């Protein structure tokens, strides 16, 4: 009745007492050939209902692109704001501790006496590009008929503009320069308008000296500028540091702004300079970048919530597609279980299906996001002015490989987990019930 050869080679039942759950009895599916088979099976399954898979992949792509574009916009904003903040104050700000912690009773009460000596010491550091002294004070500015409050900053004009570049938008006249014969100022355009001042106009600065006496000085308007923030333009003036010190009757400066060769050097340099000058406080640009921090905090929340919502939508869409596919294939899953497929093997292939849908979607989304990024570089677009500002800014989307990889990995992981989660019930249902499913 039977051929000996076939009987001999027929699958033997496990020996008595064998542990059927031991690795010996679990088929060795981990090899490259096995993985390829499962992946091929997963890809073929995603192609069963092409329209549904196309819609799923499209939504995953759009969602991923939206997250990457929004994230790239946030990153470019953070980068721009951080550079602006560091350019404004310097990467490091050195001053006496009270300059940061306490209000002044008189101008420059907590100022630095030995600014020149300290500046030379700092400039000797190879990582330091420039050290800019600052004198910050307030007072009144008058055109003879009208006086108004000013917030003034005394700067070293040549060094300041050499280091910072065109950090101010000059709306009329010229920027300050060192060595002028007459004391000069630059006015915010709102302040100039209020005082009816133009380049060449003569104005009077009025401020308390460091001894508390009132001092006045006539100055010439060299130019007007716009910071982009109307409230600041109505109050701000720049003058050279010698004029400021003469008005305040002091040789002190408020602080020294230290400009480093690269942003990444900031923390190490801060530690180094703090150790070398224990009586001074060294703050980083980030310590004083209140606008940057508040914008970043706001954007992180907005874009974080947006990303989570989009991510959830993508996961739900993939989950829904997988749920429909699994329900449609319940009997097939029962058949495969009857043939001896382990639930873990089925979960793996169904997870791979989710990975294919999510992976193709996120890759397509990344391509779309890169295309948008490149398009905006080729065809620049302008964002409208933010609230409280008068100027727009270029719409730039940053490309950050880490963000791309993290987003894609997260999306794919979520779609795989979601697929496994929706599949687990069907895969583990009794085989008889799965086979009877209609």
């Amino acid at each position, binding site marked *: *009745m*039977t*051929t000996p050869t*076939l*009987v001999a*080679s*027929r*699958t*033997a*039942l*496990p020996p*008595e007492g064998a542990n*059927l*759950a031991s690795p010996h*009895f*679990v*088929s*060795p*599916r981990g090899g490259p*050939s*096995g993985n390829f*088979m499962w992946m091929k*099976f997963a890809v*073929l*399954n995603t*192609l*069963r209902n092409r329209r549904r898979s196309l819609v799923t992949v499209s939504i995953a792509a759009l969602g991923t692109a939206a997250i990457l574009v929004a994230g790239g916009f946030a990153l470019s904003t953070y980068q721009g704001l951080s550079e602006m903040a560091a350019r404004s104050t310097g990467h490091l700000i050195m001053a006496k501790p009270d300059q940061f912690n306490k209000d002044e009773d008189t101008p420059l009460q907590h100022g630095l006496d030995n600014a020149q000596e300290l500046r030379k010491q700092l400039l000797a550091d190879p990582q330091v590009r420039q050290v800019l002294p600052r004198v910050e004070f307030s007072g009144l500015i008058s055109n003879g008929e009208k006086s108004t409050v000013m917030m003034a900053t005394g700067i070293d004009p040549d060094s300041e503009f050499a280091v910072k570049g065109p950090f101010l938008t000059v709306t009329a006249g010229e920027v300050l320069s060192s060595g002028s014969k007459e004391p000069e100022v630059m006015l915010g355009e709102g302040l100039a308008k209020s005082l009816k001042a133009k380049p060449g106009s003569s104005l009077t600065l009025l401020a308390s000296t460091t001894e508390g006496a009132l001092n006045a000085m006539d100055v010439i308007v060299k130019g007007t500028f716009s910071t982009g923030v109307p409230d600041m333009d109505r109050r701000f003036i720049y003058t050279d540091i010698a004029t400021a010190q003469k008005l305040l009757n002091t040789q002190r400066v408020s602080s020294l702004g230290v400009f480093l060769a690269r942003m990444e050097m900031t923390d190490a340099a801060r530690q180094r300079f703090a150790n070398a000058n224990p009586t001074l406080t060294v703050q980083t640009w980030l310590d004083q970048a209140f606008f940057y921090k508040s914008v970043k905090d706001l954007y992180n929340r907005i874009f974080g919530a947006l990303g989570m919502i989009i991510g959830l939508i993508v996961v739900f869409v993939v989950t829904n597609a997988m749920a429909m596919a699994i329900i449609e294939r319940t*009997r*097939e899953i029962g*058949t*495969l*279980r*009857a*043939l*001896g*497929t*382990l*639930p873990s*093997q089925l979960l793996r292939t169904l997870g791979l299906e989710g990975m294919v849908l999510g992976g193709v979607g996120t890759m397509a989304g990344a391509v779309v996001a890169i295309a948008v990024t490149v398009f905006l570089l080729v065809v620049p677009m302008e964002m409208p002015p933010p609230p409280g500002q008068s100027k727009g800014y270029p719409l730039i989307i940053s490309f950050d490989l880490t963000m791309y990889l993290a987003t894609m990995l997260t999306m794919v992981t979520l779609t795989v987990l979601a697929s496994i989660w929706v599949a687990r019930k069907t895969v583990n249902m*009794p*085989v*008889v019930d799965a*086979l009877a499913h209609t």
Partner: protein
Amino acid sequence: MSQAAASVVEMHGVHKTYHLGEHVIPALQGIDLNVRSGELLALTGPSGSGKSTILNLCGLIDTPDSGDIVLGGKSVTGLNEMQRTLLRRDALGFVFQNFNLVPVMTVAENVDYPLFIAGVPAAERRERVAAQLKAVGLFEHAQHRPDALSGGQRQRVAIARALVKRPRLVIADEPTASLDSHTADQVLELMRELGHAEGAAFVIATHDSRLTSRCDRVLALLDGRLV
């Protein structure tokens, strides 16, 4: 070879009850059964008589309420789901009424699947799949998808899939019900030939009198009892 030594599957006093809402349906009431190696056993009886329940229990896709099932001389009644799955994978074949082939796989891949999940090396799998497809006369259709085949051809693929791993026992539930009479004859003959050639026992649930006439033994069921 003694009759006991040649037994592939035995059932001893097996009871099985289903619960449909508040209704209790006794599907099997004390079944004793012994299927020998290479035997084609037909189970007949009206719907609800317990044929499919016996197939499910012998195929280890369901468990009895009481009694004992012995496969290859060892009781399988107390095995957990993982152990039953591994036994199905290694020792049992299935042929379904509606073929239940995987539509995205080719004919060759469908036949290969039981060997693939059993961890048989690729080279050996290729040889065994080719041999099995030749045995069922579908070697030329190896790269076709099931939807390109007729009903009879699909059932032959299903038989090849069931036999390719050289199982001790093949469970066949109404294997000819979806086929016309001529095709059903061909499929029956194929099962008989291959079953005998490979020494696999077949337990077949059927209403088809042509099929029962070709089986080695026929058992009739009524209300969960052998009659």
